[in-house]
């Protein structure tokens, strides 16, 4: 057996499937039909034949239908891979270009970009790519995009025939896993002094620094936003509630809200995806209880032994338990998904929701009249303490086996310019990960007000980290269990330490 992933094997599989279909099933089916039609086949000579033939016909049709169904599946794959090999052959002609330096005029040849189309739409990418094309007319851009693109491109990554440039976002994508799978180019040295197309050092322009994997850099954060707790300013004003500034005022305000009887419970979150709760509430609590030292998040990502049992974690979990026991959290949270929780929030069944900055955009169609989004980066800080903003991002990277790394780098440099950041913000309503002046852009009011938080001295923007997928799953399960009261903080810490130990092994 050829090893899986061997391209010959893959290819031969598709060919076999196709040939089987073309050479066997179609002719055999027609033959059988013909024979039945002419009465040559008597399945059982003793009996009248028509009933049997009919039955056979049905079976035959079923078989062919099955075959057709299966085959249409493999056929789409086939086109995908043949596209791939097409690029490959065309690429070979251009291979001279591959090793040239990234001088402006020398960037040419095929350049394939993979990007996920989700909440941000594809207009931002299309416009940036069009501007890129204008600058480098010799480049032939191929866009592999869509809402299912991560799954569609997966076979090509596995076969070692990836696109040049990838925007890592959406279902089925995980930057850390791509690094573990050795799919991305090591950008460590490049990043040190890479300049963007405007001749500025990219490193100095970024709001969020890239994640380091054992000191190496493979991805650059392209989108910038943060988690936080949201509320409706109008609802608050109408009822005389005020924006909580710290944990105590959050508790007292929540009590006021609860006692008013106007909502089911003060706070709702999605229990199906507890990472919303992590981003909006818990992770910032770790930093708060670590005296605003954000290194605890890095230590957690590094799965340092004992970190999940450390004092700051204990204190943060105690705060969570305090919230839980004060009846602030809506019991409806546990089984619902993010959309349902957001709907309840928009319907004023709840006053607070931990969520990400994309919330406004995502719920655009359902936001009631007069609803005014308010945003607090964190709620667990002591009186007078600083806000902690837990950022989120989506990253970009260059494939390790990129066929046109020069073009990929040129695009990267083009992407991290102020102009691209503004284009992105205007088209998507989200922020690019670049210090750009947004006041004149038409980014949403919520995004702009959030931006003010990040710029203020009173807010600490934590580094962007990504927890190992196994540990993160345990973290989500444990947090949900903790918030519904089925485990204690000690059990939460035990579970996390155990999960971390298992991954460290």
């Amino acid at each position, binding site marked *: 057996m050829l090893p899986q992933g061997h391209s010959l094997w893959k290819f031969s599989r598709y060919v076999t499937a196709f040939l089987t279909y073309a050479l066997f099933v179609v002719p055999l089916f027609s033959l059988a039909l013909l024979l039945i039609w002419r009465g040559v086949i008597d399945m059982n000579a003793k009996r009248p034949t028509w009933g049997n033939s009919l039955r056979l016909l049905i079976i035959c049709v079923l078989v062919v239908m099955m075959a057709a169904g299966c085959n249409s599946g493999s056929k789409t794959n086939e086109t995908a891979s043949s596209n791939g090999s097409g690029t490959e052959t065309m690429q070979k002609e251009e291979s001279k270009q591959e090793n040239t330096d990234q001088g402006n005029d020398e960037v040419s040849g095929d350049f394939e970009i993979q990007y996920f189309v989700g909440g941000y739409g594809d207009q931002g990418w299309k416009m940036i790519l069009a501007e890129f094309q204008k600058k480098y007319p010799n480049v032939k851009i191929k866009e592999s995009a869509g809402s299912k693109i991560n799954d569609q491109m997966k076979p090509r990554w596995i076969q070692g025939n990836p696109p040049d440039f990838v925007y890592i976002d959406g279902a089925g994508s995980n930057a850390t896993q791509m690094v573990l*799978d050795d799919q991305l180019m090591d950008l460590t040295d490049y990043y040190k002094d890479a300049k963007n197309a405007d001749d500025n050092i990219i490193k100095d322009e970024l709001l969020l620094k890239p994640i380091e994997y054992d000191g190496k850099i493979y991805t650059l954060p392209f989108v910038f936003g943060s988690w936080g707790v949201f509320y409706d300013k109008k609802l608050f004003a109408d009822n005389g509630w005020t924006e909580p500034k710290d944990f105590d005022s959050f508790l007292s305000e929540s009590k006021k809200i609860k006692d008013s009887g106007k909502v089911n419970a003060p706070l709702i979150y999605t229990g199906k995806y507890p990472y919303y709760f992590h981003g909006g509430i818990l992770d910032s609590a770790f930093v708060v209880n670590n005296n605003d030292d954000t290194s605890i998040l890095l230590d957690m990502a590094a799965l340092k032994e004992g970190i999940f049992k450390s004092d700051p974690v204990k204190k943060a979990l105690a705060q969570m338990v305090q919230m839980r026991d004060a009846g602030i959290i809506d019991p409806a949270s*546990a089984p619902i998904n993010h959309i349902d929780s957001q709907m309840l929030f928009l319907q004023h069944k709840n006053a607070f929701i931990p969520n990400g900055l994309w919330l406004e955009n995502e719920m655009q169609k359902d936001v009631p009249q007069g609803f005014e989004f308010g945003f607090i980066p964190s709620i667990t800080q002591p009186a007078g303490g600083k806000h902690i903003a837990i950022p989120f991002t989506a990253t970009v990277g260059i494939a390790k086996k990129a066929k046109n790394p020069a073009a990929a780098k040129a695009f990267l440099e083009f992407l991290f310019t102020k102009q691209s950041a503004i284009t992105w913000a205007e088209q998507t309503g989200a922020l690019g990960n670049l210090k750009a002046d947004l006041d004149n852009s038409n980014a949403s009011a919520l995004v702009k007000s959030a931006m003010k938080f990040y710029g203020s001295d009173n807010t600490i923007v934590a580094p962007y980290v990504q927890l190992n997928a196994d540990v993160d799953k345990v973290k989500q399960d444990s947090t949900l269990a903790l918030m*519904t009261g089925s485990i204690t903080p000690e059990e939460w810490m035990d579970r996390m330490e155990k999960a971390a130990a298992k991954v460290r092994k």
Partner: protein
Amino acid sequence: MNSTPPVLGVPVKPEAPRGFTWKKKRNMFMFVFTVPTLLFFCLFMIYPIFHGLYFSFTDWSGGSETKNFIGFDNYKEMLNDPIIGTAIVNDYFLVFWKVIGIVGLGVLFAVVLTRFRLRGTVFFRSVFFIPNILSVVVIGVLWNYIYNPSIGFLNSFLSLFTSENVQTPWLGDTKLAIWMLLPPSIWAGIGFVMILVIAAILNIPKDLYEAASIDGAQEWQQFCRITMPLAWEQIKVSILWVVMTTLNGSFVIVWMMTEGGPDNSTQVMGSYLYQMGFRQYHFGYASAIGVLILILSLITTLALQRLMRRDVVELA
């Protein structure tokens, strides 16, 4: 073919029309209808099974170009994984209650709709069958709304009888959630079993029932002595159908409604496989779970068939 002149005195087989002997025709027929099926069966069943088996001995993440052979490590890991235990228990929990619920209610409805001269039989038959044509995905979404703690039908309904609003998070409670998966799955399965058993009952000669009632047998006795034994084949098929679809397919309803949560309390083998393979990037481990599912379904089906075959001899 050269046709030699017949030799005198030797009986000659009448030649088949168009040069085909009966045997050849038969062989050709068998070839025509078995080979393509077999080919596709191999291509789409046997090959993936063995491929999955091979993956289960590797540490493949599902995305990398390379994978290492790690022997039985995935299987050893499975022994130490408490979630696997939960998943197996949950799977058989669903199998047990679904068999009871679906087959029990399906037979009940079938009997009611055939043996009791009711009006509107056709209407009821269609109503009970409707969930069967709905996709499980739709059923999952639908029941999610029924169970929704804040705006769901169930809590609103229960609130009619209580002074305070009922806010039970049906799917959010680690002890309740798995029970809550039963109503939608049973609701979705009844129709098929019902139709199957109705067909079986309608096939039973009316005279048997007439004779029984003349002899003074009650409805219940008729059910036990006539309907059950004579519809047993269909009931047996129904049970096997429920068991197999549950072991292989409960993934969909679980994934639509709880994604295995809260805190893994509704995890079944299928959903855990998905979680491991596509969310946590342990494709090798997921394949090992797949092999486990295959083995357990095989054992269960074979055991059940054995068990029920004996019954059929006794009853029929």
